[in-house]
């Protein structure tokens, strides 16, 4: 019996370690959620920059509005090509830890941040199919997200934080768009004497849309009509 | 110095010489006729005078001034229409008149233009579009346009073309009026001898680009020399009979069935007597003045007759 005790305790230790490991992604997600949860609403100035090889469009400025849990609006004047997904919508899912299953995918370095990679699988049938998050263990902020939804497909976003890191509000989000998926429509009229594109542009298969946030007004409130009024 | 002098005018189109060394003098205040068949070179000469065509060689001067060097000043004193009067059919008569006058640097009052239209017999037609005008009315309007700026010289190329008999008479009277009442010099061309004869003071006959006769109409078309054409069975015998009469009648030509004689007008009665005294059958006798005969000969002959001026 005594000879079997080390084996028994080893088993207990392994079981405990396993349980501890199993709790870790959930805890990471909870920590990230808790940090963001302090933000009930925010309003900020937004600069949008486009780097899409097949679309030539200048920077634009506007205002961004967010209200918990899932209201997000960007107010811009003029033509804009925006990412289809709300960059903060995931936090609405993360508030209920029973609504998803989190699986750790190890670590990955982005920039100089050694991120924990967590895959989130919703428990119930909903628009979100799967999400993969790269979390900064130090700040509990999302550094990168890759979300796949039924309505909008897969979106990749990189987050950079500075002044408003305490709220988990990024200064910059860079959305990566896959260009293979779409083609420009046929021309409206004859396009004569086109210049040949730069070879680097021809080879690129992705483009980026960059959101630069500034002048956040956090939890100061604004009318609800902001989300419904027309441009 | 003549008012208009043309010296050795040549206009060549490729190998063809439309005008071939033409000389011409027009005196001030006279009506001058250019007579010639179609294609003789009349219009080409007039076009050279009006700078529509550049001569191959030769000179054209107006009061001693070369047209090449004083074009604008000279043309300011010329009113003309070539081949036919040219109007903007989509404009009214008075608009055409106004347009033409302004190109001469004139700005006539409406009253002046109406008076001019009345002068040429177009009273009441001032606002009518030219496209509704008859040929005669267009000719009249053309005359009006040539006179609107009060030129010294009027050049008209076949002005009676397309006119009815009354129109021809009216035009003739108008041209005479231009000379007699308004003191203008008129140069007009025609292929009809009688037209020239009736109004011109001087004339030139143009044939194959050359002038073959020039001078006063009264002299060129005098009846001092007569050409008589006799239709007969035996022209040779008749010619011998006339010659044997010893009256100095000249036999110009003997053709089968036709004898041509030349005589002075005073000799005609004697010639008639000689002819009637012969036994040879005579079917017709026709007399013409010498130049008239010449002009008519041109219509049947390729030879180029030469006459002294």
């Amino acid at each position, binding site marked *: 019996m005594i000879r079997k005790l080390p084996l028994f305790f080893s088993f207990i230790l392994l079981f405990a370690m396993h349980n501890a490991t199993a709790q870790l992604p959930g805890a990471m997600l909870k920590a990230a959620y808790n940090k963001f949860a302090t933000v009930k609403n925010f309003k900020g100035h937004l600069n949008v920059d486009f780097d899409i090889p097949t679309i030539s469009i200048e920077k634009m400025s506007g205002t961004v509005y967010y209200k918990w849990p899932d209201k997000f609006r960007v107010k811009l004047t003029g033509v*804009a090509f925006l990412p289809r997904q709300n960059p903060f919508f995931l936090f609405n899912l993360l508030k209920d830890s029973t609504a998803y299953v989190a699986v750790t995918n190890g670590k990955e370095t982005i920039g100089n941040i050694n991120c924990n990679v967590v895959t989130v699988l919703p428990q119930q049938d909903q628009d979100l199919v799967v999400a993969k998050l790269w979390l900064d263990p130090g700040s509990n902020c999302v550094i990168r997200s890759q979300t796949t939804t039924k309505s909008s497909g897969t979106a990749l976003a990189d987050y950079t934080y500075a002044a408003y890191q305490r709220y988990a509000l990024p200064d910059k989000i860079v959305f990566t768009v896959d260009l293979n998926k779409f083609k420009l429509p046929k021309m409206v009229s004859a396009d004569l004497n086109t210049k040949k594109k730069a070879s680097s542009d021809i080879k690129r298969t992705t483009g980026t849309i960059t959101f630069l946030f500034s002048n956040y007004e956090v939890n100061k409130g604004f009318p609800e009509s902001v989300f419904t009024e027309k441009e | 110095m003549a008012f208009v002098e043309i010296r050795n005018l040549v206009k060549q189109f490729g190998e063809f010489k439309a005008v071939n060394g033409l000389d011409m003098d027009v005196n001030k205040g006279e009506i001058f006729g250019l007579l010639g068949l179609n294609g003789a070179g009349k219009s080409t000469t007039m076009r050279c005078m009006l700078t529509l065509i550049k001569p191959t060689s030769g000179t054209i001067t107006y009061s001693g001034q070369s047209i090449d060097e004083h074009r604008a000043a000279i043309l300011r004193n010329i009113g003309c229409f070539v081949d036919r009067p040219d109007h903007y059919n989509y404009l009214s008569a008075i608009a055409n008149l106004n347009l033409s006058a302004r190109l001469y640097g004139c700005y006539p009052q409406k009253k002046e233009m109406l008076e001019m239209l009345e002068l040429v017999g177009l009273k009441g037609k001032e606002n009518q579009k030219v496209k509704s005008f008859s040929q005669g009315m267009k000719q009249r309007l053309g005359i009006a346009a040539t006179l609107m700026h009060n030129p010294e010289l009027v050049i008209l190329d076949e002005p009676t073309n397309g006119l009815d008999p009354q129109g021809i008479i009216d035009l003739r009277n108008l041209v005479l009026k231009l000379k007699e009442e308004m003191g203008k010099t008129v140069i007009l061309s025609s292929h009809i001898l009688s037209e020239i004869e009736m109004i011109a003071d001087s004339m030139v006959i143009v044939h194959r680009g050359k002038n073959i006769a020039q001078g006063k109409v009264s002299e060129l078309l005098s009846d001092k020399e007569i050409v008589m054409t006799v239709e007969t069975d035996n022209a040779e015998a008749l010619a011998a009979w006339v010659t044997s009469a010893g009256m100095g009648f000249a036999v110009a030509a003997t053709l089968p069935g036709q004898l041509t004689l030349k005589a002075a007008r005073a000799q005609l009665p004697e010639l008639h007597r000689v002819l009637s005294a012969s036994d040879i059958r005579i079917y017709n006798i026709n007399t013409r003045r010498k130049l008239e005969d010449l002009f008519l000969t041109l219509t049947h002959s390729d030879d180029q007759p030469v006459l002294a001026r």
Partner: protein
Amino acid sequence: MISLFSLVKLESYKYWSKPRTYIGFIAITVIVVLIQIALYADGKAYWDFLTQSLSQSFEIRGLDFNGNMVCFILLQTLIVQMPLMVALVSGDVVSGEVQTGTIRSLLTKPVSRTKILLSKLIATEIYTLLLIVWLGILAWFVSLMLFGRGDVVVLKSDQLVVIRSADSAWRFLSAFFVAFLSLSVINCFAFMLSCFAENSVTPIVVSMSVVILFTIIGTFDIPLFDAIKPFLFTTHTIVWRNFFDNPIDKHLIWTSSVFLLAHIILFSGVSIYHFNRKDFLQ
């Protein structure tokens, strides 16, 4: 001596008295109004169809038809219809008068042939300018009134270009100016042919045929054609479109503008030279 200005006034008076002169304005009005009505009724559906693949990857904002976009679409009529309208008048200017004989009346006046020809050329340029202005009023101002302001979206074969509304006004004005330069080349070309012909139809048909032929050559990516394309004036008559690009190729616009000016001078010079030497036998 009558001044060039007075001559131009007289020539303009003649053109504007002719019904043919108004055909171009009527045609442009009909074309523009029809397209505006169609876009007003079905423009959104048409645009959604064109951009449907884009909406799969983006949330597209502000891509509704607006006056600036409608104007840009309407300006495409410049490519074929406007040169025809211009040639219709320019091709008749000299040859029409030769045909009717009124040229004789003009040339026997105390005015130099050069001045007469210049006055006709300037009068046709005024017509061309007014045609462009009319197109601008219909295509731009009326479109802005009907559809409102907004960004211009230019669909090219390899790129979609968005021009901001605030940035569009000077581009449109510049495009109209360069388009006027382009149409002036067509005008001078048809005018030159008119000096050689003795009827109105030939210069109009020939000038349009040349424009169409050169345009077709310009659309083919064949090495042989690529070598001659830079020398075809139609290659440069569409340079106004470069104002709706980002970034604007200023060098190309300058080069093409100089090329167009050179053609205007060339065609005008040939016209004057030939007209001064010509014998008018009709």
